[in-house]
């Protein structure tokens, strides 16, 4: 491992909405001298935080696309990926987690562990990312870092240990006590840039040593040396740090740091902690799939001299052309290197190599092992692996969820149409959960995404960045259809009146499939259907399930078993069997008692307990099922399962029901059966649409 790699950290900053993550990132950039002035997120100075490079984010005060940026602190190079907080953009969070070695989980010292925190924690767990916690907003009324530490332990099940304690709280917040060095820290100067170290105030000494005891107890679990030193009564800072580091990297300990980014308190110690406790790229074991060895897992070596393996995890179409964010897992990346995209087997030459800082960039000649940089002018898709020639590795694919909501959009004029096409082309390349297609029946452009806000943001961006004015229809839910029960089919397709005839007969059954969307099996014996035509049948059924007969949505969970059939030596053909299969499905599927399925979302609402009744009511009105409610003093959280179709406009409703004091998050859970009354309504609407299209 090179010193460059040892002195590198790739960190993500993850949090619940409004935990002050972007403010924190902004302070980090400032103290690392990447920016010369601090801008607030909801910019009163009209500039906005540096990491939110898109106008829209500045306006809404949320962060959408993860921008990576590189900073230097204490002789270490830190790559920071700023991740979005809203669930609609989870794909962004997941993509960044995939390439990070560790994370800082930001929590609000009032709100503590919130629904999104739990989602992020689950993602960190999925990718095995070690992390430390930063309890922010100590200046706010009701701040209680001890409570938040307890919540990390109880609600998330982590071994959380306070590394610092506050000196004063809320408006009286003065500074922090570092429980490792046992010193008081104050942050002086107009922007808190001068860290002043003092003795711990006498009145806090007892509490500080009690908390330090806990810290030593927890850290000793990871170091016999420290245990011994503690017994002898002389644990050194270095021993404590080493032990905490070991525990953190093993994900068996979560060190908790505290502060107030807004008040410029606690940021420099947090940066020190990133260097002290979070792993360098070589300390994390990465695996790749070896395509030469039949897909066996293979450990990557964080060696700069080894053959290169790198992952393109994000694409961005900027003003200078396509920018590809790439993480080097093995070997290094030099300008002029030749690499192979293992998916397409295309060779590329590394041209311009840049290090990113939010909006600006600097050219570099080489990226050492573990680094995250960007390439110019490389054609690829997000998730592609690049290797040195001779190496055929694939980093496991990123998990991409299916979109659950769609919207028809119509450009207002010809100019807008061109610009819309351009915008859509870019958005779909950047974000695999955002998709678009033209509906063959209505010839309308349909966009699909992960939620209302997700689509809204893209429509806004279209307007702002591309000046593409579009009219949007009502959002539509991605319904599905499903087979009710097993049904036998026997269908003969015959057209033998003059000219070349068509003949095909298919016999078999359709049955519900518990896992997966579609499966085809042939049990045809004795050449009753010639072997060449079996795939034709498969093709026909596959085409048929794309559009169910109830409401025209795809049919999922279908297993087709072909048992018998018949053919004609002259008139049977590929197309005849495809048609027979399609028609067989259309004729017999309705006889299975088919059902309409709708996406059901997992919804979490959080807010003051006094509004719980209103929240329960609003969920019950939306055909929702309340799973649980948790009341913690005056704060409560309701978890429920609600059909997506009922969730449109919920944010407005919730705001008015709770005086704007509650917030909600939702994510796709499963497909569930639509109640009979709703199903009837949907079928009527479908018929109506068909009649209308027919007339046209």
């Amino acid at each position, binding site marked *: 491992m090179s010193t460059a790699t040892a002195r590198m950290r790739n960190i993500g900053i993850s949090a619940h909405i409004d935990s002050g993550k972007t403010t924190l990132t902004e302070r980090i950039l400032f103290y690392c001298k990447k920016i010369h002035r601090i801008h607030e997120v909801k910019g009163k100075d009209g500039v906005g935080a540096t990491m939110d490079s898109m106008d829209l984010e500045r306006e809404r005060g949320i962060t959408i696309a993860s921008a990576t940026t590189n900073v230097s602190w204490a002789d270490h190079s830190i790559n920071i990926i700023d991740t979005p907080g809203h669930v609609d953009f989870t794909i962004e969070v997941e993509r960044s987690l995939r390439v990070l070695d560790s994370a800082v989980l930001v929590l609000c010292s009032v709100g503590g562990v919130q629904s999104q925190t739990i989602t992020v924690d689950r993602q960190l767990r999925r990718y095995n990312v070690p992390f430390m916690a930063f309890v922010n907003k100590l200046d706010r009324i009701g701040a209680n870092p001890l409570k938040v530490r307890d919540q990390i332990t*109880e*609600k998330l099940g982590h071994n959380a240990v306070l590394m610092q304690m506050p000196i004063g709280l809320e408006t009286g917040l003065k500074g922090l006590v570092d429980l490792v060095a046992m010193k008081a820290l104050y942050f002086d100067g107009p922007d808190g840039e001068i860290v002043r170290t003092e003795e711990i105030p006498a009145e806090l000494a007892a509490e500080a040593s009690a908390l330090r005891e806990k810290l030593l107890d927890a850290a000793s679990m990871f170091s016999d040396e420290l245990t011994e030193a503690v017994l002898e009564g002389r644990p050194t800072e270095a021993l404590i740090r080493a032990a905490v580091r070991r525990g953190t990297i093993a994900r068996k300990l979560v060190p908790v740091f505290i502060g107030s980014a807004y008040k410029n308190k606690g940021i420099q110690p947090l940066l020190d902690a990133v260097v002290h406790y979070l792993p360098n790229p070589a300390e994390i074991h990465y695996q790749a799939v070896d395509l030469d060895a039949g897909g066996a897992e293979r450990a990557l070596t964080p060696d700069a001299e080894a053959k290169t393996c790198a992952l393109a995890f994000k694409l961005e179409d900027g003003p200078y052309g396509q920018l590809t964010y790439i993480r080097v897992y093995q070997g290094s990346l030099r300008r002029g290197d030749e690499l192979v995209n293992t998916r397409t087997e295309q060779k590329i030459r590394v041209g311009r190599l840049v290090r990113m800082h939010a909006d600006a960039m600097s050219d570099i000649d080489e990226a050492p092992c573990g680094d995250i940089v960007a390439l110019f002018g490389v054609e690829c898709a997000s998730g592609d692996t690049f290797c040195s020639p001779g190496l055929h590795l694939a980093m496991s694919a990123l998990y991409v969820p299916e979109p659950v909501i769609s919207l028809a959009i119509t450009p207002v004029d010809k100019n807008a149409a061109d610009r819309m096409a351009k915008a859509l082309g870019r958005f779909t390349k950047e974000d695999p959960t955002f998709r678009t297609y033209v509906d063959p029946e209505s010839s309308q452009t349909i966009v699909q995404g992960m939620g209302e806000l997700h689509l809204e943001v893209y429509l806004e961006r279209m307007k702002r960045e591309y000046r593409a004015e579009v009219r949007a229809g009502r959002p539509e839910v991605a319904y599905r259809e499903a087979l009710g029960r097993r049904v036998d089919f026997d269908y003969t397709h015959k057209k033998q009146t003059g000219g070349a005839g068509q003949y095909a007969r298919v016999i078999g059954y359709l049955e519900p499939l518990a896992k997966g969307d579609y499966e085809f099996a042939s049990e045809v014996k004795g050449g009753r259907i010639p072997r060449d035509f079996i795939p034709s049948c498969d093709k026909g059924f596959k085409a048929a399930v794309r559009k169910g007969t109830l409401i025209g949505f795809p049919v999922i969970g279908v297993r087709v078993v072909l048992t018998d059939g018949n053919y004609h030596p002259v008139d049977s053909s590929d197309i005849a069997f495809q048609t027979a299969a399609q028609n067989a499905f259309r004729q017999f599927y309705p006889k299975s008692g088919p059902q309409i399925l709708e996406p059901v979302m997992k919804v979490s609402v959080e807010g003051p*307990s006094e509004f*719980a*009744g*209103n929240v*329960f*009511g609003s*969920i*019950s009105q939306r055909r929702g*099922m*309340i*799973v*649980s*409610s*948790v*009341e*913690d*003093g005056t704060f*409560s959280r309701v*978890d429920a399962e609600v059909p997506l179709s009922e969730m449109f406009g919920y944010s407005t409703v919730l705001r008015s029901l709770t005086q704007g004091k509650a917030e909600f998050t939702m994510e796709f859970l499963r497909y569930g059966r639509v109640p009979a009354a709703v199903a009837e309504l949907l079928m009527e609407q479908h018929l109506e649409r068909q009649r209308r299209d027919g007339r046209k």
Partner: protein
Amino acid sequence: MTLKIKEELVKRSPLRVLERSLAGGLGKGRLGVLASRKGVGKTACLVHMAADKLIQGKPVIHVSYSSRVDYIITWYEDIFKEMDKKRGMKGALAIYDEIVRNRVIMNFKQDGARTEQVLRSLEAMIVHGNFPAETLIVDGLDFARTGTEDLERFKEFAARLGLEIWFSASLKGEEPLFDGSGVPVLLGELMSAIDVLITLRHQGQQVQFNLVKGPGRRVPKALGLRLDPTTLLIARTPATRRSR
């Protein structure tokens, strides 16, 4: 199909034994308490009782003062898994997804959750949330800090909304835990508000159910039920099985 599974599960449930001893069940507007030392298996019993109601299609609110929601959900899953393994109870797992729709879990932090506040939230769930609960399971209420007036409030609530409420009471501290008539010392002063009291006590290797207070009688009586130590399911004691 599922209807038949449910019928069978209801018929075979050892809880029918309990119902017979209570002359049909706890009943609306009444409070029942399941008391034992910590770690004997009260939560498992309550979850089993709730599961029995759910299988009958009766909505249940599970109130917990201690456990995390996901732990409680796991309790239910485990109970159904264990039932599924029993002879004649096959299919319990198959109906699980359907019947849990009739269950809401409500979690309160012990300190700070006053009885009025808890009842207010429960009422909100039943009335505004349109959740027609018939049974309330209250697990982990600290009876050392609960007075008669708290229980009277629960009772008034139960009567007004037509519910029956089962509590668990954890007994801790110095021996003796029970007085001469088998009533836990901790609950002595609350007995006026309690309609049914069942204690769980170790009898050799077994955990036996004793009815200490019930309809019309105050004499302690063995219920003919025990807790299976491996599955944590309520089961008939071998003696009653023979007598059937």
